[in-house]
Protein backbone atom coordinates (compact mmCIF):
# COMPACT_ATOMS: atom_id res chain seq x y z
CA UNK A 1 0.00 0.00 0.00
CA UNK A 2 1.49 3.30 -1.03
CA UNK A 3 1.47 6.31 1.22
CA UNK A 4 -1.10 8.06 -0.92
CA UNK A 5 -3.67 5.25 -0.76
CA UNK A 6 -3.07 4.90 2.97
CA UNK A 7 -3.67 8.59 3.49
CA UNK A 8 -6.82 8.49 1.41
CA UNK A 9 -8.04 5.55 3.49
CA UNK A 10 -7.45 7.45 6.73
CA UNK A 11 -9.27 10.41 5.22
CA UNK A 12 -12.31 8.28 4.29
CA UNK A 13 -12.32 6.58 7.70
CA UNK A 14 -12.40 9.92 9.47
CA UNK A 15 -15.23 11.03 7.22
CA UNK A 16 -17.24 8.03 8.41
CA UNK A 17 -16.40 8.84 12.03
CA UNK A 18 -17.50 12.43 11.51
CA UNK A 19 -20.88 11.42 10.10
CA UNK A 20 -21.32 8.85 12.88
CA UNK A 21 -20.46 11.35 15.62
CA UNK A 22 -22.84 13.97 14.23
CA UNK A 23 -25.65 11.46 13.88
CA UNK A 24 -24.88 10.09 17.36
CA UNK A 25 -25.98 13.34 18.97
CA UNK A 26 -29.14 13.51 16.91
CA UNK A 27 -29.98 9.83 17.43
CA UNK A 28 -29.53 10.13 21.20
CA UNK A 29 -31.84 13.13 21.19
CA UNK A 30 -34.46 11.11 19.28
CA UNK A 31 -34.11 8.15 21.67
CA UNK A 32 -34.58 10.56 24.60
CA UNK A 33 -37.72 12.08 23.24
CA UNK A 34 -39.08 8.76 21.94
CA UNK A 35 -38.60 7.17 25.35
CA UNK A 36 -40.28 9.99 27.20
CA UNK A 37 -43.10 10.03 24.64
CA UNK A 38 -43.71 6.31 25.11
CA UNK A 39 -43.79 6.73 28.88
CA UNK A 40 -45.78 9.90 29.19
CA UNK A 41 -48.17 10.32 26.26
CA UNK A 42 -50.84 8.09 27.79
CA UNK A 43 -50.98 10.33 30.86
CA UNK A 44 -51.43 13.60 28.98
CA UNK A 45 -54.97 14.88 29.31
CA UNK A 46 -56.82 18.03 30.30
CA UNK A 47 -57.36 16.36 33.64
CA UNK A 48 -53.62 16.15 34.17
CA UNK A 49 -53.29 19.86 33.37
CA UNK A 50 -56.12 20.85 35.67
CA UNK A 51 -55.41 18.73 38.74
CA UNK A 52 -53.61 19.72 41.91
CA UNK A 53 -50.71 17.63 43.21
CA UNK A 54 -51.69 14.49 45.09
CA UNK A 55 -50.28 11.50 46.91
CA UNK A 56 -51.90 9.21 44.37
CA UNK A 57 -50.14 9.31 41.01
CA UNK A 58 -53.37 8.74 39.01
CA UNK A 59 -54.91 11.81 40.62
CA UNK A 60 -51.90 14.11 40.63
CA UNK A 61 -51.70 16.90 38.09
CA UNK A 62 -49.50 19.83 37.16
CA UNK A 63 -51.87 22.78 37.55
CA UNK A 64 -49.75 24.48 40.22
CA UNK A 65 -46.55 23.66 38.32
CA UNK A 66 -47.43 25.11 34.95
CA UNK A 67 -49.12 28.18 36.39
CA UNK A 68 -45.98 28.70 38.49
CA UNK A 69 -43.86 28.38 35.37
CA UNK A 70 -46.04 30.98 33.59
CA UNK A 71 -45.70 33.38 36.55
CA UNK A 72 -41.93 32.94 36.52
CA UNK A 73 -41.88 33.43 32.75
CA UNK A 74 -43.82 36.69 33.01
CA UNK A 75 -42.05 38.18 36.02
CA UNK A 76 -38.57 37.22 34.83
CA UNK A 77 -39.22 38.80 31.43
CA UNK A 78 -40.51 41.99 33.08
CA UNK A 79 -37.35 42.32 35.17
CA UNK A 80 -34.63 40.95 32.90
CA UNK A 81 -35.73 42.40 29.54
CA UNK A 82 -35.44 46.14 30.37
CA UNK A 83 -32.38 45.67 32.59
CA UNK A 84 -30.49 43.50 30.10
CA UNK A 85 -31.30 45.57 27.04
CA UNK A 86 -30.53 48.78 28.95
CA UNK A 87 -27.14 47.47 30.04
CA UNK A 88 -26.43 46.27 26.50
CA UNK A 89 -27.24 49.70 25.06
CA UNK A 90 -25.08 51.43 27.64
CA UNK A 91 -22.07 49.20 26.99
CA UNK A 92 -22.36 49.42 23.22
CA UNK A 93 -23.34 53.08 22.74
CA UNK A 94 -22.34 55.08 25.82
CA UNK A 95 -19.46 53.44 27.70
CA UNK A 96 -16.12 55.01 26.81
CA UNK A 97 -13.31 52.60 26.09
CA UNK A 98 -11.23 52.47 29.23
CA UNK A 99 -10.74 50.64 32.47
CA UNK A 100 -14.40 50.94 33.47
CA UNK A 101 -15.77 49.35 30.31
CA UNK A 102 -13.01 46.74 30.54
CA UNK A 103 -14.05 45.77 34.04
CA UNK A 104 -17.70 45.63 33.03
CA UNK A 105 -16.83 43.37 30.11
CA UNK A 106 -14.64 40.95 32.08
CA UNK A 107 -17.26 40.92 34.80
CA UNK A 108 -20.09 39.97 32.44
CA UNK A 109 -17.99 37.21 30.86
CA UNK A 110 -17.33 35.88 34.35
CA UNK A 111 -20.97 36.07 35.42
CA UNK A 112 -22.00 34.05 32.37
CA UNK A 113 -19.77 31.25 33.66
CA UNK A 114 -21.00 31.20 37.25
CA UNK A 115 -22.95 27.95 37.90
CA UNK A 116 -26.69 28.49 38.25
CA UNK A 117 -26.78 27.02 41.74
CA UNK A 118 -24.50 29.82 42.98
CA UNK A 119 -27.15 32.30 41.82
CA UNK A 120 -29.51 30.26 43.97
CA UNK A 121 -27.30 30.87 47.03
CA UNK A 122 -27.17 34.58 46.15
CA UNK A 123 -30.96 34.73 45.87
CA UNK A 124 -31.40 32.83 49.13
CA UNK A 125 -29.32 35.33 51.05
CA UNK A 126 -30.24 38.61 49.34
CA UNK A 127 -33.85 38.23 48.15
CA UNK A 128 -35.20 35.62 50.55
CA UNK A 129 -33.48 36.75 53.78
CA UNK A 130 -32.24 40.34 53.50
CA UNK A 131 -35.12 41.69 51.41
CA UNK A 132 -37.54 39.41 53.25
CA UNK A 133 -39.32 38.12 50.17
CA UNK A 134 -39.36 34.53 51.46
CA UNK A 135 -39.72 31.64 49.04
CA UNK A 136 -41.98 33.72 46.80
CA UNK A 137 -42.41 34.00 43.05
CA UNK A 138 -40.76 37.41 43.22
CA UNK A 139 -37.61 36.04 44.90
CA UNK A 140 -37.47 33.26 42.31
CA UNK A 141 -37.86 35.59 39.33
CA UNK A 142 -35.29 38.07 40.65
CA UNK A 143 -32.80 35.22 41.02
CA UNK A 144 -33.47 33.91 37.52
CA UNK A 145 -33.30 37.45 36.10
CA UNK A 146 -29.77 37.89 37.44
CA UNK A 147 -28.90 34.47 36.02
CA UNK A 148 -29.95 35.33 32.46
CA UNK A 149 -28.86 38.99 32.48
CA UNK A 150 -25.39 38.25 31.00
CA UNK A 151 -26.93 36.31 28.08
CA UNK A 152 -29.35 39.15 27.25
CA UNK A 153 -26.60 41.78 27.53
CA UNK A 154 -24.25 39.91 25.19
CA UNK A 155 -26.92 39.26 22.55
CA UNK A 156 -28.15 42.87 22.74
CA UNK A 157 -24.63 44.15 22.16
CA UNK A 158 -24.16 41.88 19.16
CA UNK A 159 -27.47 42.92 17.66
CA UNK A 160 -26.62 46.62 18.08
CA UNK A 161 -23.13 46.09 16.71
CA UNK A 162 -24.63 44.66 13.51
CA UNK A 163 -26.42 47.95 12.73
CA UNK A 164 -24.24 50.02 10.38
CA UNK A 165 -22.80 53.29 11.69
CA UNK A 166 -24.25 55.19 8.72
CA UNK A 167 -27.78 54.80 10.13
CA UNK A 168 -26.81 56.52 13.35
CA UNK A 169 -24.84 59.21 11.55
CA UNK A 170 -27.78 59.95 9.27
CA UNK A 171 -29.98 60.40 12.36
CA UNK A 172 -27.44 62.77 13.92
CA UNK A 173 -27.21 64.73 10.67
CA UNK A 174 -30.95 65.33 10.85
CA UNK A 175 -30.53 66.77 14.31
CA UNK A 176 -31.51 63.77 16.43
CA UNK A 177 -30.09 63.52 19.93
CA UNK A 178 -28.20 60.39 20.91
CA UNK A 179 -31.19 58.81 22.61
CA UNK A 180 -33.51 59.72 19.71
CA UNK A 181 -31.12 58.00 17.30
CA UNK A 182 -30.96 54.92 19.51
CA UNK A 183 -34.69 54.76 20.27
CA UNK A 184 -36.08 55.36 16.79
CA UNK A 185 -33.31 54.01 14.56
CA UNK A 186 -30.91 51.59 16.22
CA UNK A 187 -33.34 49.71 18.44
CA UNK A 188 -35.95 48.99 15.74
CA UNK A 189 -33.18 47.84 13.41
CA UNK A 190 -31.68 45.49 16.00
CA UNK A 191 -34.92 44.30 17.61
CA UNK A 192 -34.82 40.93 15.83
CA UNK A 193 -31.45 40.01 17.28
CA UNK A 194 -32.35 41.36 20.71
CA UNK A 195 -35.63 39.44 20.87
CA UNK A 196 -33.90 36.25 19.75
CA UNK A 197 -31.46 36.53 22.64
CA UNK A 198 -34.18 37.41 25.14
CA UNK A 199 -36.41 34.49 24.13
CA UNK A 200 -33.52 32.01 24.24
CA UNK A 201 -32.48 33.18 27.69
CA UNK A 202 -36.05 33.09 29.03
CA UNK A 203 -36.41 29.57 27.70
CA UNK A 204 -33.28 28.70 29.66
CA UNK A 205 -34.79 30.25 32.80
CA UNK A 206 -37.95 28.16 32.36
CA UNK A 207 -35.88 24.97 32.44
CA UNK A 208 -33.81 25.95 35.49
CA UNK A 209 -34.38 23.87 38.60
CA UNK A 210 -31.42 24.16 40.95
CA UNK A 211 -31.48 27.89 41.79
CA UNK A 212 -35.21 27.78 42.49
CA UNK A 213 -34.81 24.80 44.82
CA UNK A 214 -32.16 26.73 46.75
CA UNK A 215 -34.31 29.86 46.87
CA UNK A 216 -37.03 27.74 48.44
CA UNK A 217 -39.56 26.83 45.76
CA UNK A 218 -41.54 23.93 47.12
CA UNK A 219 -42.26 20.57 45.60
CA UNK A 220 -45.73 20.44 47.12
CA UNK A 221 -47.90 23.53 46.68
CA UNK A 222 -51.61 22.79 47.04
CA UNK A 223 -52.91 26.06 45.56
CA UNK A 224 -52.47 28.17 42.43
CA UNK A 225 -50.32 31.27 42.99
CA UNK A 226 -52.42 34.45 42.90
CA UNK A 227 -49.83 37.16 43.56
CA UNK A 228 -46.05 37.54 43.11
CA UNK A 229 -45.62 37.14 46.86
CA UNK A 230 -47.11 33.62 46.92
CA UNK A 231 -45.14 30.44 47.38
CA UNK A 232 -44.78 28.47 44.21
CA UNK A 233 -43.56 25.45 42.33
CA UNK A 234 -42.55 25.11 38.68
CA UNK A 235 -42.57 22.29 36.15
CA UNK A 236 -38.89 21.27 36.53
CA UNK A 237 -39.23 21.03 40.32
CA UNK A 238 -42.41 18.97 40.00
CA UNK A 239 -40.56 16.66 37.61
CA UNK A 240 -37.58 16.39 39.97
CA UNK A 241 -39.93 15.52 42.81
CA UNK A 242 -41.72 12.80 40.83
CA UNK A 243 -38.52 11.30 39.37
CA UNK A 244 -37.14 10.74 42.87
CA UNK A 245 -40.15 8.62 43.93
CA UNK A 246 -40.18 4.85 43.66
CA UNK A 247 -43.76 4.29 42.42
CA UNK A 248 -44.03 3.74 38.68
CA UNK A 249 -47.13 5.95 38.46
CA UNK A 250 -45.06 9.02 39.40
CA UNK A 251 -42.44 8.19 36.75
CA UNK A 252 -45.23 8.23 34.17
CA UNK A 253 -46.38 11.58 35.55
CA UNK A 254 -42.81 12.91 35.33
CA UNK A 255 -42.58 11.83 31.69
CA UNK A 256 -45.89 13.54 30.89
CA UNK A 257 -44.76 16.73 32.65
CA UNK A 258 -41.47 16.57 30.72
CA UNK A 259 -43.44 16.48 27.46
CA UNK A 260 -45.15 19.75 28.47
CA UNK A 261 -41.86 21.34 29.56
CA UNK A 262 -40.08 20.26 26.38
CA UNK A 263 -42.90 21.60 24.20
CA UNK A 264 -42.58 25.00 25.88
CA UNK A 265 -38.78 24.97 25.45
CA UNK A 266 -38.91 23.88 21.83
CA UNK A 267 -41.66 26.33 20.88
CA UNK A 268 -39.64 29.20 22.39
CA UNK A 269 -36.47 28.06 20.63
CA UNK A 270 -38.43 27.71 17.39
CA UNK A 271 -39.76 31.27 17.68
CA UNK A 272 -36.22 32.53 18.34
CA UNK A 273 -34.81 30.77 15.28
CA UNK A 274 -37.73 32.00 13.15
CA UNK A 275 -37.20 35.59 14.30
CA UNK A 276 -33.49 35.38 13.60
CA UNK A 277 -33.99 34.08 10.07
CA UNK A 278 -36.79 36.57 9.30
CA UNK A 279 -34.81 39.57 10.41
CA UNK A 280 -31.70 38.41 8.59
CA UNK A 281 -33.71 38.20 5.37
CA UNK A 282 -35.70 41.39 5.82
CA UNK A 283 -32.93 43.72 6.85
CA UNK A 284 -30.33 44.22 4.15
CA UNK A 285 -28.01 47.17 4.43
Amino acid at each position, binding site marked *: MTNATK*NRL*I*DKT*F*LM*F*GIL*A*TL*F*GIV*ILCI*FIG*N*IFADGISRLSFDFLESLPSRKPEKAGILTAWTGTLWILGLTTLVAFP*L*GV*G*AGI*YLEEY*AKKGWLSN*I*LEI*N*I*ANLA*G*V*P*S*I*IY*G*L*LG*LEIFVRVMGLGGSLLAGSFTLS*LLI*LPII*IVSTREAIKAVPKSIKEAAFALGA*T*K*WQAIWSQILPASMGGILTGVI*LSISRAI*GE*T*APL*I*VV*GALAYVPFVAKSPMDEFTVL*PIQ*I*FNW*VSRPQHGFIVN*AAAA*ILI*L*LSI*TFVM*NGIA*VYLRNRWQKKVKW
Partner: protein
Amino acid sequence: MNKTREYIIERLLFLCAAITVFTTISIILVLLVEAVGFFQEVSIIDFLTDKEWTPLFADKHFGILPLVCGTLLTTFIAISVALPIGLTIAIYLSEYAPKSFRKIFKPLLEVLAAVPTVVYGFFALLVVSPFLQKFFPEMSGFNSLSAGIVMGIMIIPFISSLSEDALYAVPKSLREAAYGMGSTRFQTAFKVTVPAASSGIVVSIILALSRAIGETMIVAIAAGQQPRLTLDPTVPIETITAYIVQVSMGDVPHGSLEYKTIFAAGITLFVFTFILNNISFYIKKKYQEKYD
Protein backbone atom coordinates in the same frame (compact mmCIF):
# COMPACT_ATOMS: atom_id res chain seq x y z
CA MET B 1 -34.87 70.16 28.27
CA ASN B 2 -33.42 67.69 25.82
CA LYS B 3 -30.12 67.83 27.63
CA THR B 4 -31.49 66.83 31.02
CA ARG B 5 -33.52 64.05 29.43
CA GLU B 6 -30.43 62.72 27.67
CA TYR B 7 -28.49 62.91 30.92
CA ILE B 8 -31.15 61.06 32.92
CA ILE B 9 -31.41 58.32 30.29
CA GLU B 10 -27.66 57.83 30.23
CA ARG B 11 -27.58 57.54 34.04
CA LEU B 12 -30.45 55.02 34.00
CA LEU B 13 -28.73 52.87 31.39
CA PHE B 14 -25.52 53.06 33.39
CA LEU B 15 -27.41 51.75 36.43
CA CYS B 16 -28.59 48.76 34.37
CA ALA B 17 -24.99 47.95 33.49
CA ALA B 18 -23.84 48.55 37.07
CA ILE B 19 -26.24 45.87 38.31
CA THR B 20 -23.93 43.25 36.84
CA VAL B 21 -21.08 44.55 38.99
CA PHE B 22 -23.32 44.55 42.07
CA THR B 23 -24.25 40.96 41.26
CA THR B 24 -20.63 39.84 41.24
CA ILE B 25 -19.83 41.74 44.43
CA SER B 26 -22.90 40.30 46.15
CA ILE B 27 -22.06 36.75 45.08
CA ILE B 28 -18.56 37.05 46.50
CA LEU B 29 -19.74 38.83 49.67
CA VAL B 30 -22.57 36.38 50.37
CA LEU B 31 -20.33 33.37 49.90
CA LEU B 32 -17.49 34.89 51.93
CA VAL B 33 -19.61 36.07 54.86
CA GLU B 34 -21.39 32.74 55.33
CA ALA B 35 -18.20 30.74 54.69
CA VAL B 36 -16.31 32.83 57.28
CA GLY B 37 -19.05 31.97 59.76
CA PHE B 38 -18.59 28.33 58.84
CA PHE B 39 -14.82 28.40 59.29
CA GLN B 40 -15.21 29.91 62.75
CA GLU B 41 -16.79 26.62 63.79
CA VAL B 42 -14.88 24.21 61.58
CA SER B 43 -11.14 24.48 61.07
CA ILE B 44 -10.10 25.05 57.48
CA ILE B 45 -7.53 22.27 57.79
CA ASP B 46 -10.25 19.75 58.66
CA PHE B 47 -12.28 21.10 55.78
CA LEU B 48 -9.47 20.51 53.28
CA THR B 49 -8.04 17.25 54.64
CA ASP B 50 -10.79 15.27 56.39
CA LYS B 51 -11.84 12.36 54.19
CA GLU B 52 -15.46 12.31 55.29
CA TRP B 53 -18.38 14.69 54.68
CA THR B 54 -21.24 13.96 57.07
CA PRO B 55 -22.63 17.33 58.28
CA LEU B 56 -26.19 15.97 58.42
CA PHE B 57 -25.33 13.00 60.65
CA ALA B 58 -24.85 12.80 64.40
CA ASP B 59 -21.12 12.11 63.95
CA LYS B 60 -20.24 15.22 62.00
CA HIS B 61 -17.28 15.41 59.64
CA PHE B 62 -16.60 18.38 57.42
CA GLY B 63 -14.09 17.20 54.81
CA ILE B 64 -14.89 18.65 51.39
CA LEU B 65 -12.68 16.07 49.60
CA PRO B 66 -15.44 13.48 48.93
CA LEU B 67 -17.64 16.16 47.33
CA VAL B 68 -14.75 17.54 45.27
CA CYS B 69 -13.85 13.99 44.25
CA GLY B 70 -17.44 13.27 43.17
CA THR B 71 -17.54 16.51 41.20
CA LEU B 72 -14.24 15.83 39.42
CA LEU B 73 -15.18 12.20 38.72
CA THR B 74 -18.47 13.05 36.96
CA THR B 75 -16.77 15.93 35.16
CA PHE B 76 -13.98 13.63 33.96
CA ILE B 77 -16.47 11.05 32.65
CA ALA B 78 -18.48 13.79 30.96
CA ILE B 79 -15.48 15.31 29.22
CA SER B 80 -14.23 11.85 28.13
CA VAL B 81 -17.54 11.46 26.30
CA ALA B 82 -17.92 15.01 25.01
CA LEU B 83 -14.36 15.80 23.91
CA PRO B 84 -13.79 13.08 21.27
CA ILE B 85 -17.35 13.26 19.93
CA GLY B 86 -17.59 17.05 20.02
CA LEU B 87 -14.21 17.59 18.39
CA THR B 88 -14.89 15.01 15.67
CA ILE B 89 -18.21 16.74 14.92
CA ALA B 90 -16.49 20.14 14.80
CA ILE B 91 -13.80 18.95 12.39
CA TYR B 92 -16.31 17.06 10.26
CA LEU B 93 -18.69 20.01 10.00
CA SER B 94 -16.02 22.59 9.17
CA GLU B 95 -13.68 20.53 6.96
CA TYR B 96 -15.74 17.78 5.37
CA ALA B 97 -19.46 18.45 5.42
CA PRO B 98 -21.28 20.26 2.60
CA LYS B 99 -22.48 23.76 3.53
CA SER B 100 -26.16 22.78 3.52
CA PHE B 101 -25.48 19.88 5.89
CA ARG B 102 -23.61 22.17 8.29
CA LYS B 103 -26.42 24.70 8.23
CA ILE B 104 -28.97 22.07 9.30
CA PHE B 105 -26.99 20.02 11.79
CA LYS B 106 -25.24 22.73 13.77
CA PRO B 107 -28.46 24.23 15.17
CA LEU B 108 -29.93 20.76 15.52
CA LEU B 109 -27.04 19.73 17.78
CA GLU B 110 -27.44 22.93 19.78
CA VAL B 111 -30.89 21.67 20.76
CA LEU B 112 -29.00 19.24 23.01
CA ALA B 113 -27.87 22.19 25.13
CA ALA B 114 -31.37 23.71 25.22
CA VAL B 115 -33.01 20.67 26.83
CA PRO B 116 -33.64 21.38 30.56
CA THR B 117 -31.16 19.46 32.70
CA VAL B 118 -33.87 17.87 34.85
CA VAL B 119 -34.91 16.01 31.69
CA TYR B 120 -31.38 14.67 31.31
CA GLY B 121 -31.53 13.54 34.92
CA PHE B 122 -34.69 11.55 34.19
CA PHE B 123 -32.92 9.98 31.25
CA ALA B 124 -29.75 9.11 33.18
CA LEU B 125 -31.63 7.49 36.05
CA LEU B 126 -34.37 5.66 34.15
CA VAL B 127 -32.82 4.81 30.79
CA VAL B 128 -29.02 4.89 30.87
CA SER B 129 -28.54 3.31 34.32
CA PRO B 130 -30.79 0.27 33.63
CA PHE B 131 -29.08 -0.10 30.24
CA LEU B 132 -25.59 -0.07 31.79
CA GLN B 133 -26.70 -2.52 34.46
CA LYS B 134 -27.14 -5.10 31.71
CA PHE B 135 -23.35 -4.97 31.25
CA PHE B 136 -22.34 -4.33 34.87
CA PRO B 137 -24.94 -6.25 36.92
CA GLU B 138 -23.35 -5.29 40.23
CA MET B 139 -23.64 -1.56 39.45
CA SER B 140 -25.81 0.54 41.74
CA GLY B 141 -28.91 2.26 40.33
CA PHE B 142 -27.36 5.58 41.36
CA ASN B 143 -23.85 5.95 39.97
CA SER B 144 -21.47 8.52 38.57
CA LEU B 145 -21.03 6.66 35.27
CA SER B 146 -24.53 7.18 33.86
CA ALA B 147 -24.73 10.72 35.26
CA GLY B 148 -21.33 11.50 33.72
CA ILE B 149 -22.18 10.01 30.33
CA VAL B 150 -25.46 11.90 30.07
CA MET B 151 -23.73 15.10 31.20
CA GLY B 152 -21.19 14.47 28.45
CA ILE B 153 -23.97 14.27 25.87
CA MET B 154 -25.35 17.54 27.19
CA ILE B 155 -22.05 19.41 26.78
CA ILE B 156 -21.28 18.04 23.29
CA PRO B 157 -22.71 21.18 21.63
CA PHE B 158 -20.49 23.45 23.77
CA ILE B 159 -17.42 21.79 22.32
CA SER B 160 -18.72 21.10 18.81
CA SER B 161 -20.24 24.53 18.16
CA LEU B 162 -17.51 26.70 19.67
CA SER B 163 -14.69 24.60 18.20
CA GLU B 164 -16.41 24.65 14.83
CA ASP B 165 -16.59 28.45 15.00
CA ALA B 166 -12.86 28.55 15.71
CA LEU B 167 -12.02 26.11 12.88
CA TYR B 168 -14.31 27.93 10.47
CA ALA B 169 -12.53 31.21 11.22
CA VAL B 170 -9.14 29.86 10.07
CA PRO B 171 -8.32 31.67 6.79
CA LYS B 172 -9.02 29.70 3.62
CA SER B 173 -5.54 30.40 2.29
CA LEU B 174 -3.97 28.14 4.93
CA ARG B 175 -6.18 25.23 3.86
CA GLU B 176 -5.59 25.89 0.18
CA ALA B 177 -1.84 25.90 0.71
CA ALA B 178 -2.07 22.48 2.37
CA TYR B 179 -4.30 21.08 -0.37
CA GLY B 180 -1.95 22.50 -2.98
CA MET B 181 0.87 20.45 -1.53
CA GLY B 182 -1.20 17.30 -1.90
CA SER B 183 -2.55 16.91 1.63
CA THR B 184 -5.76 15.04 2.24
CA ARG B 185 -8.57 16.73 4.18
CA PHE B 186 -7.54 14.68 7.23
CA GLN B 187 -3.94 15.85 7.05
CA THR B 188 -5.03 19.44 6.47
CA ALA B 189 -7.39 19.30 9.41
CA PHE B 190 -4.97 17.82 11.92
CA LYS B 191 -1.72 19.44 10.75
CA VAL B 192 -3.00 22.87 9.76
CA THR B 193 -6.49 23.95 10.82
CA VAL B 194 -6.70 22.33 14.26
CA PRO B 195 -3.33 23.75 15.38
CA ALA B 196 -4.28 27.14 13.94
CA ALA B 197 -7.60 27.11 15.82
CA SER B 198 -6.16 25.53 18.95
CA SER B 199 -6.78 28.51 21.24
CA GLY B 200 -10.47 28.57 20.31
CA ILE B 201 -10.72 24.83 20.79
CA VAL B 202 -9.08 25.00 24.22
CA VAL B 203 -11.48 27.77 25.24
CA SER B 204 -14.44 25.62 24.20
CA ILE B 205 -13.13 22.69 26.25
CA ILE B 206 -12.61 24.86 29.33
CA LEU B 207 -16.13 26.28 29.04
CA ALA B 208 -17.52 22.75 28.76
CA LEU B 209 -15.51 21.71 31.83
CA SER B 210 -16.76 24.65 33.83
CA ARG B 211 -20.31 23.85 32.77
CA ALA B 212 -19.89 20.20 33.83
CA ILE B 213 -18.48 21.15 37.23
CA GLY B 214 -21.43 23.43 37.94
CA GLU B 215 -24.08 21.06 36.55
CA THR B 216 -26.59 20.19 39.23
CA MET B 217 -29.79 18.38 38.36
CA ILE B 218 -28.32 15.42 36.45
CA VAL B 219 -26.05 14.49 39.33
CA ALA B 220 -28.64 15.29 41.99
CA ILE B 221 -31.06 12.85 40.34
CA ALA B 222 -28.81 10.11 39.00
CA ALA B 223 -25.53 10.04 40.93
CA GLY B 224 -26.94 9.40 44.40
CA GLN B 225 -26.50 11.42 47.57
CA GLN B 226 -23.70 9.62 49.34
CA PRO B 227 -20.46 11.59 49.64
CA ARG B 228 -17.72 9.08 49.07
CA LEU B 229 -14.00 9.43 48.39
CA THR B 230 -13.75 7.01 45.49
CA LEU B 231 -12.91 6.81 41.81
CA ASP B 232 -15.22 3.82 41.27
CA PRO B 233 -17.83 4.99 38.74
CA THR B 234 -20.38 2.29 39.61
CA VAL B 235 -21.23 3.37 43.17
CA PRO B 236 -23.38 6.27 44.41
CA ILE B 237 -21.44 9.47 45.10
CA GLU B 238 -22.32 13.09 45.73
CA THR B 239 -21.11 16.25 44.03
CA ILE B 240 -20.81 19.73 45.54
CA THR B 241 -23.88 20.89 43.63
CA ALA B 242 -25.97 17.85 44.56
CA TYR B 243 -25.15 18.44 48.24
CA ILE B 244 -26.43 22.02 48.04
CA VAL B 245 -29.66 20.73 46.50
CA GLN B 246 -29.98 17.98 49.11
CA VAL B 247 -29.74 20.48 51.97
CA SER B 248 -32.05 22.98 50.25
CA MET B 249 -34.76 20.33 49.82
CA GLY B 250 -34.91 19.87 53.59
CA ASP B 251 -35.86 22.45 56.17
CA VAL B 252 -32.58 23.86 57.40
CA PRO B 253 -32.90 26.81 59.79
CA HIS B 254 -31.07 30.01 58.85
CA GLY B 255 -27.86 30.49 60.80
CA SER B 256 -27.36 26.83 61.68
CA LEU B 257 -24.10 25.10 60.84
CA GLU B 258 -25.86 22.96 58.21
CA TYR B 259 -27.07 26.16 56.56
CA LYS B 260 -23.52 27.48 56.46
CA THR B 261 -22.16 24.27 54.93
CA ILE B 262 -23.95 24.96 51.65
CA PHE B 263 -22.12 28.27 51.40
CA ALA B 264 -18.79 26.64 52.23
CA ALA B 265 -19.54 24.11 49.48
CA GLY B 266 -20.69 26.94 47.22
CA ILE B 267 -17.51 28.95 47.61
CA THR B 268 -15.44 25.87 46.76
CA LEU B 269 -17.48 25.42 43.58
CA PHE B 270 -17.17 29.12 42.79
CA VAL B 271 -13.38 29.02 43.11
CA PHE B 272 -13.17 26.12 40.63
CA THR B 273 -15.34 27.73 37.97
CA PHE B 274 -13.85 31.19 38.55
CA ILE B 275 -10.35 29.90 37.83
CA LEU B 276 -11.49 28.02 34.71
CA ASN B 277 -13.43 31.02 33.37
CA ASN B 278 -10.47 33.33 33.84
CA ILE B 279 -8.10 30.94 32.10
CA SER B 280 -10.42 30.82 29.11
CA PHE B 281 -10.82 34.60 29.15
CA TYR B 282 -7.04 35.03 29.24
CA ILE B 283 -6.50 32.61 26.36
CA LYS B 284 -9.18 34.35 24.31
CA LYS B 285 -7.65 37.81 24.86
CA LYS B 286 -4.10 36.71 24.30
CA TYR B 287 -4.40 34.53 21.22
CA GLN B 288 -7.33 35.93 19.28
CA GLU B 289 -6.95 37.67 15.90
CA LYS B 290 -3.71 35.91 15.28
CA TYR B 291 -4.41 35.72 11.55
CA ASP B 292 -6.04 39.09 10.93
